[in-house]
């Protein structure tokens, strides 16, 4: 077995050094009724690298991947081009096979990259500080709600009607046990501003996504004002962080906490994970003390030289146990690194260019598709994703597109469930789409309608 270095001779020698007759003596505390004398004999025996590769290649081949078809799916996960050097660097042994940097003297690589990551996240969101990542955008949103409840000592939470429904479900699941009262409105493309009317004296936070799940770009400033006037916080959610290259940042519009999905930068679609949740907030001790997860911070070593450590960990589970701000431990280390490297390659100029390119492609696609008979573009303003009303149920249309080799977006019913949104199709375009892709999509859509 190629991963196990011990030989039978080694094992015999070691057993005798330990002073036992056989290996089972070391497992003597297992109740005899629970022992498995035959091991896992219902599972196949070990397999060669070649055999494993053959099997997994076969499974991989049973999928229609995004590179095999004109591809326009978004809905919280976006296909962007990741430079080759990103994937090369994150596979360096020193990054890939290191643990959480609890021993800072021999983990400065991870710690400095986390400090740089936190800075980049703060920069693009326009916020004061950011933590070292959450699992994904949805769990970052739930944690942001709990954080807002602790800061304001209130329990009310209002979800905007344009919030990704999965984000709403995750937030409900992860906060309901802590007494958070959730209010929301029926899903709608352009009604997010109306939640200002729901704010009460018990509102801890309002949660608004921009661009929202329908692709609509939302002005957060009036919502921030409404929240602040009532002593509540504005949590800005973003599932497509490339948009921040072209849009006013949540910080500029008055957000108190930002919860975002960072997958678009540096990370593959990977069927939904692993992704990287971003959590940023105002640079305010009260906020930072209530934040979940890890922070890397700057300090000096015994020589006075700059160095970095994990800090403010008295908020965390390994110190505070049941009084911790969150139970999170392992987060998205390597995905933060991919995010950070990709963003370093882009820089300000590249990030803005990338965002502009996405917007240009989406505008061109929206105009083409809106010319197909029976198709209506529902967004007034959008970044790289928009919603179409179709003359037929979108689920059927998407299936028909797929059989013709086009992955043509997400039916709203896929994420909201069947009902009044059945005829809505959510379509995304990125820099990966060519003119030919878009022409093919438009042609095939006209055929299947």
């Amino acid at each position, binding site marked *: 077995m190629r991963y196990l270095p011990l030989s039978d001779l080694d094992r015999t020698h070691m057993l005798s050094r330990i002073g036992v007759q056989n290996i089972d003596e070391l497992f003597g505390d*297992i*109740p005899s009724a629970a022992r498995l004398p035959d091991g896992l004999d219902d599972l196949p025996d070990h397999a060669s*690298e070649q055999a494993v590769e053959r099997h997994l290649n076969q499974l991989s081949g049973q999928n229609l991947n995004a590179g095999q078809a004109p591809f326009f799916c978004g809905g919280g996960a976006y296909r962007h081009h990741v430079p080759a050097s990103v994937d090369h660097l994150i596979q360096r042994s020193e990054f890939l096979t290191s643990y959480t940097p609890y*021993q800072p003297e021999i983990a400065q690589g991870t710690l400095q990259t986390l400090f740089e990551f936190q800075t980049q996240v703060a920069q*693009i969101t326009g916020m004061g500080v950011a933590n070292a990542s959450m*699992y994904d955008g949805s769990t970052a949103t739930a944690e942001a709600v709990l954080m807002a409840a602790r800061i304001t000592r209130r329990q009310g939470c209002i979800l905007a009607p344009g919030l990704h429904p999965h984000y709403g479900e995750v937030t409900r699941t992860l906060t309901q046990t802590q007494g958070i009262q959730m209010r929301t409105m029926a899903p709608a493309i352009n009604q997010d501003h109306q939640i200002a009317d729901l704010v009460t004296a018990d509102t801890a936070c309002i949660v608004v996504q921009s661009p929202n799940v329908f692709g609509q770009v939302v002005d957060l400033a009036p919502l921030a004002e409404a929240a602040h006037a009532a002593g509540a916080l504005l949590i800005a959610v973003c599932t497509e962080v490339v948009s921040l290259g072209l849009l006013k940042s949540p910080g500029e519009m008055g957000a108190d906490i930002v919860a975002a999905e960072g997958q678009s930068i540096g990370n593959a679609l990977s069927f939904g994970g692993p992704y990287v949740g971003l959590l940023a907030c105002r640079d305010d001790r009260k906020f930072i003390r209530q934040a979940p997860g890890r922070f890397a911070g700057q300090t*000096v070593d*015994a020589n006075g030289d700059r160095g970095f450590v994990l800090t403010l960990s008295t908020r965390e589970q390994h110190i505070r146990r049941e009084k911790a701000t969150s139970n999170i431990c392992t*987060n998205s280390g390597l995905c933060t690194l991919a995010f950070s490297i990709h963003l370093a390659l882009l820089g300000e100029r590249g990030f803005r260019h990338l965002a502009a390119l996405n917007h240009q492609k989406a*505008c061109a696609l929206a105009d083409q598709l809106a010319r197909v008979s029976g198709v209506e573009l529902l967004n007034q303003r959008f970044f790289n994703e928009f919603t179409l009303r179709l003359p037929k149920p979108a689920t059927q249309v998407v299936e028909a597109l797929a059989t013709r080799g086009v992955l043509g977006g997400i039916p709203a019913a896929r994420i909201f469930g069947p009902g009044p949104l059945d005829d809505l199709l959510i379509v995304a375009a990125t820099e990966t789409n060519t003119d030919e892709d878009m022409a093919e999509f438009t042609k095939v859509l006209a055929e299947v309608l």
Partner: protein
Amino acid sequence: MAVHTQDRATRPAATDGTQRLSPALLQDEGLLFEIGETSKCGVDLEALREQPNRLGDLARTSSTGLAGLSEPETLRHYVRLSQRNYAIDLGLYPLGSCTMKHNPRLNEKMARLPGFADLHPLQPVSTVQGALGLMDELSHWLLQITGMDVVALSPKAGAQGEMCGMLCIRAAIEAKGELASRNRVLVPESAHGTNPATAAACGFVIDQIPANAEGRVDMDAFEQKLGPDVAAIMLTNPNTCGLFEPDIKRIADLIHQHGGYFYCDGANLNAIMGKCRVRDLGVDAMHINLHKTFSTPHGGGGPGAGPTVLSSRLARFAPLPFVTHEPGSSFGLVEQGEQDGAADAFGRMCAFHGQMGMFVRALAYMMSHGGDGLRQVSEDAVLNANYLLARLKDVFSPAFTGTCMHEALFDDSFLEGTGVSTLDFSKALIDEGYHPMTMYFPLVVHGAMLVEPTETESLQSLDQFADAMLSLAQAAKDQEHDRFTQAPRTAPSLRLDETQAARHPILRWTADVD
């Protein structure tokens, strides 16, 4: 822009009197923001044809300030930083409770197959049959290894798996109409911090159970704490002292008799694969850290994956989404509460299906080992830990007598009178070429040192590590104080001031910092 340079010449020399840090191999490196420029870009993007604006009045007018680098500068920046990290590929990584084992590169290659990596979570189900098939196969392996009924794959890491299991338990209690009265969760004081943090996040009250003199659950104390308000016990097995709980079946039976549930923290599954199945121990829910037992890389702190296996008593409460078997040997996905079989699902743990990239790696790992190899993994993991224990026990002070499972626990009594603390000893290990062991955990042992070598260390590697440990222990007895209090002396950074970091937090770079 001032690049922060470190003056190596002022460093104390290494123990052998030579300067071991070559500036050629360990280059100084500033922060990205000190070496990069906002005008620089390392990606060639398609030229913009037109610049439409459908953003209304929400277009960005301010600069982000993001620093950019060309590709060669990027490679240098990150390669230089990488060289400041210890890693499994460099040496033994004896972090108890963390299972730092070899990460096979086949798994990395497989996770990058376009059929997995370039697949969108919301594509039509007909186009992702291979991905769902892979999740189904992974489930089969996990259920065979644990003997449990159902597995929820979506939890994103161990702590989220705990949350998933405890929310299932909460849902089951709620279904029985007992939520108001059954709210106490028993947690041994040796537990990982995530256990009480999770139970509290799920709305339960935590009640701590002491350990006995043998490092196991104090059964008398446990029995006294049972009552009609007990929702569950959260128990790690093998426990965080590296010991199997011999009374585990009785603990399970008693908790069940009192109407509660048994949550098992699966962090230490690496010790028992193919030796016993947690179902036969009476477990109702257990998360599995794919990034520990099944070798998906730790990546400097994630991503992890925490699939949670459930007994038949909890199966129907499993969260959305999950994979189903459909007629004609195809697979379906249940993503909405209205769909068949989802009526009791307690909710949703994350936006999509969980950590697919980790699923691929874990399945590749399991298939590579097979049922026979996984049993060998556990046997070798336990053998390696006991071998280290045997080599160290006469000089170090084992916290408990007898053999251990996959990790060996020592207290700091062997350092008595030396003036050396567990922290100093651990830092000195760095100068011997090793990452320190887990220290000061579990909390039930004074100055704890928890050593987990894993099965992927050779006998030679174990012997070298034992020799280093023994020589350090001798140095402590010989009062070589500087070797400990000044340690590490050969690392890229000397000991870092954590107090200052917390007292005056600097959590990001700004132009005026420094």
